[in-house]
């Protein structure tokens, strides 16, 4: 399943916003698919923080292994650095 992250916003900054996104992701996406692989597509995202991403990934990793999660279109510097910070 591919998640278009920009549909959550182009500026993904705060921890509470990440928590809200995680709940939507759980109820509207993850609970409605049997796909084991999850792809986060960051095309169109301008500013991403580790706090926002951390909240989302904590929810995802309740049901998915880290190896089942992939990231695409991560050239934006804040996206790349946030992934490096949270996933490493």
């Amino acid at each position, binding site marked *: 399943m591919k998640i278009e992250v920009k549909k959550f916003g182009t*500026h993904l*900054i705060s921890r509470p916003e990440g928590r809200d996104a995680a709940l939507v992701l759980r109820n509207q996406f993850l609970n409605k698919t049997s796909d084991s692989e999850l792809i986060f597509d960051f095309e169109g995202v301008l*500013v991403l*923080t580790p*706090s926002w991403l951390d909240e989302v990934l*904590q929810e995802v990793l309740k049901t998915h292994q880290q190896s089942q999660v992939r990231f695409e279109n991560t050239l934006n*510097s*804040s996206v790349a*650095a946030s992934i490096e910070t*949270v996933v490493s």
Partner: protein
Amino acid sequence: MVEIKQLQEIKDWFEFGITCPFIEANFCTNRADFNARLISYEAMLGKSLPDDCKYLVAASIGEVGNNCFDHNLGFWNGSPGCLFVRESDFCILADRGRGIKESLKGVYKLSASEHSYTEIAFEKVITGRAPEKRGNGLKFTKRSIIKCELGFYCVSAGENIFIGNKPNSNLSALTNYKSIGPGTLSLFSFTKNPSLVKTDKP
């Protein structure tokens, strides 16, 4: 353009809670207000920084600014919120919350070789910094400042830290200032000045 008088007003508010029209105009009473000002600030950042750094710095400012709200709920000294002064070559973020030391000391004890909770906040991932589950934001901020060759100053409860280039001397009223008051004051400086001494390394 912020003048010396306004730097003094920032110090007076940060240390003693004395407010004035300049403080009120730059004060974000809630997170949504802060985030909206940050998004509009991006255009100004774009004049000082290349795109790569613009987005990285915006994310770092977002981390520091949101920390004002994340860690001070129930601990405000006066009005809840975050002062966010936005200029083309620097920005200032400050809150009158409980400060980094108070926020950290319940979950982390300094070792004999460690001297400052404020330094630790930028150096170590400390799980359990309530209410966060993981504390990576300030480490991310430090890496971003070093990567973009910018300057940063933070003071909280008498502890201070410089990262990267030292901010310009016209901001020394703040960077020479080691407040022992509550809360946290941070300064991002976007001026690249190779003649200034680097005080920290990646």
